[in-house]
């Protein structure tokens, strides 16, 4: 567990109240940060969870060059020029990442790709992209987290481990807090957890359902059928690992609760079934509205991945995986999503913003990334920055920079930076690239629709 560095004797201390932690999609905005302005670090993060503390304490100012081109230190201008040149020269340039930077930067990134007729995708595609696709198919009944705090008396987590991935999800939003119609907090709620294994989240549950690995869809589908009063096959326990009695009990609870919520984790989106697993959750929640009030929510990972979805959607009409090759946005997951365009060897240049595909993408995609010119922006060194032709060291959003982020429930929140950074922000770097790209493609060179 990370510990705050012992505060040195410093008089130059600043307290930032109601600061926002952007480490995960919970985007808790009740942090009280103690900042040592001399040491350029946060020494205390009151109310932060263990992940949040690590986030605040570990993001100090590192001694890194702002720009490296082919591993050699360069000026910011040189870096921006080279980045713009790479992008303009490419026939299938891609941008990826964007979930750990504010919306203001995301908006610029989309503009750059619109200008050069490139391809833009966010980490959504390997997170809850499948849930986004499911949404496009069936819609969603959902709510802001405050509504869940105020009203939800049945809380179901499916395929997630918030205790480790989103520690304050339980305490700040959905399990323990008291709300308007939940005066006694957890006592007024029934918590159900569905997972393939016991995790540190399990103890919070009143009911734990262990589903056989890869059988979530079957189980959800059986629940849908039962909710609708339809028959299901006799061998349901054999198929899914959950007995008929347990299912019937859950169905009764779901139909009779006052306000129910289904939270889904990446245990659903990353496994066999992907978008259909999410779709099953959405449909189940919608079905239940025939009987009571029911909502569903993906538990999103990164601090502003939800913002990325929103920005890309309002600018292009599609939430992720958007291609501008023809001078207008097109969408097709599997065709224009980053993992695919890399693994198929299609992209011929890449700009990676605040993300590390070189460490978490499939091997084949990483191999292609190693072959093409890559521009990267990150606060830390990563496998991706290492293989980049042009790398920018940038300031940390929420710690050094302001801006807007969206919590996992689409609630926008403004950031309160704690201390200044000598590094440029993502937005500044992207602005610089945008200006150069627009200049290079101005007038008769403008890329228009084809």
């Amino acid at each position, binding site marked *: 567990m990370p510990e705050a560095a012992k505060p040195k004797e410093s008089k130059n201390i600043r307290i930032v109240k109601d600061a926002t932690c952007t480490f995960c999609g919970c985007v808790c905005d009740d942090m009280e940060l103690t900042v040592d302005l001399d040491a350029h670090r946060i020494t205390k993060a009151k109310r932060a969870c263990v992940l949040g503390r690590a986030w605040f304490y570990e993001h100090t100012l590192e001694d890194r060059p702002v720009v490296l081109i082919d591993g050699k230190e360069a000026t910011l201008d040189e870096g921006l020029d080279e980045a713009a040149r790479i992008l303009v020269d*490419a*026939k*299938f*340039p891609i941008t990826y990442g964007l979930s750990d930077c504010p919306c203001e930067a995301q908006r610029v990134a989309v503009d750059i790709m619109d200008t*050069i*007729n*490139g391809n833009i995708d966010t980490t959504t595609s390997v997170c809850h992209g499948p849930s986004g*696709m499911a949404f*496009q*198919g069936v819609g969603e009944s959902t709510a802001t987290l405050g509504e869940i705090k105020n009203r939800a008396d049945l809380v179901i987590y499916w395929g997630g481990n918030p205790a480790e991935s989103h520690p304050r999800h339980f305490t700040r939003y959905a399990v323990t807090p008291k709300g308007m119609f939940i005066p006694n907090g957890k006592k007024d709620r029934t918590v159900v957890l569905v997972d393939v294994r016991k995790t540190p989240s399990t103890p919070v549950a009143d009911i734990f359902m262990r589903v056989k690995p890869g059988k979530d*869809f*079957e189980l959800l*589908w*059986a629940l*849908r*059928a039962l909710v*609708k009063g*339809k*028959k*299901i*096959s006799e*061998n*349901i326990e054999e*198929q*899914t690992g959950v007995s008929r009695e347990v299912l019937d009990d859950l169905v009764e609870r779901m139909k009779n609760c006052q306000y129910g919520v289904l939270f889904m984790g990446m245990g659903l989106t990353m496994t*066999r*079934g992907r978008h*259909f697993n999410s779709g099953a959750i959405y*449909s189940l929640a919608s*079905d239940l509205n025939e009987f009571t009030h029911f909502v569903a929510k993906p538990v999103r990972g990164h601090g502003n991945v939800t913002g990325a979805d929103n920005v890309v959607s309002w600018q292009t009409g599609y939430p992720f995986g958007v291609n*501008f*090759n*023809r001078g207008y946005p097109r*969408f*097709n*997951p*599997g*065709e224009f999503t980053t993992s695919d365009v890399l693994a198929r060897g*299609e*992209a*011929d240049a890449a700009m990676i913003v605040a993300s590390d595909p070189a460490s978490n993408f499939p091997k084949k995609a990483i191999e292609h990334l190693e072959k093409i010119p890559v521009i990267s922006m990150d606060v830390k060194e990563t496998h991706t920055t290492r293989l980049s032709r042009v790398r920018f060291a940038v300031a940390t959003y929420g710690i050094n920079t302001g801006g807007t982020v969206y919590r996992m429930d689409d609630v926008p929140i403004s950031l309160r930076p704690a201390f200044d950074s000598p590094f440029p922000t993502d937005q500044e770097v992207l602005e610089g690239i945008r200006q150069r790209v627009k200049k290079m493609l101005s007038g008769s060179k403008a*890329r228009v629709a*084809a």
Partner: protein
Amino acid sequence: MSATLLHLHTQPQVPLEAETLSPATIAGLSELGIEHLQVMHGNVKAKVGDFFKVTGKGTPDIHIEGDLAKVKMIGACMSEGRVIIEGNVGMHVGIGMSGGEILVKGDATDWVGPEMSGGRITVLGDAGHMVGSAFRGQSTGITGGEIFIHGSAKNEIGNSMRRGLIAIGGDAGDFTAVSMRAGTIIVMGKMGVRTGAGMVRGTVVCFEESQILPSFEYSCRYQPLFLRLYLIRLQEHGFEEKINDKHINGNYERYSGDAVELNRGEILLFSG
């Protein structure tokens, strides 16, 4: 009339979007006219001639040679004529076609025949995901036509299809016939899991055993007469090695579903 021949002389570096390579576009053009047709090479406008050598005037009969795995949308919106591809083909082959015939002698990748309403696409090799499927968000997939894959195909065959016939000579991936509205899918090899999830109407036939979702219910073992008509037709279209008399005369176990939807769909599993 002799066929128009296109020979790939330069492999595209990035995906080539070539919806112009379709009888709908080239019929009546001169060699030069065809070579000047626009294609998109990534984000750059290019010409057919940059990649293909064209022989012959534009006819509704097109032969294309080369590995076209990176070439998308061949045969787009064709309503008549014939396209023969002597090799592999890229995404969206036959997109929006309403008539005519496409023959792919190699493999196809994802999205064979999206938004198809008529005609026939035959792939002698394997196909990728989304054969005859709806694009994301669409509630209706193909509304007619026939797609014959002689090899295997992957996930979501016939997603939301409304009408038409899809035949897979080999194996199928997961979610075959997902959200199917109606139509017929015949799989001669094995199917992945979750066949027919959310299907409203329609028929899935498989010659092998398969896992059935809990929301489907067994109804009977019988000899579905209508199936003979399909199997006979498929025998006549090159599946004679995959379809034997036992399949034509045999019994099938019928499962009806999906109970979460209208429950008017069926999965027929061959049982000897």
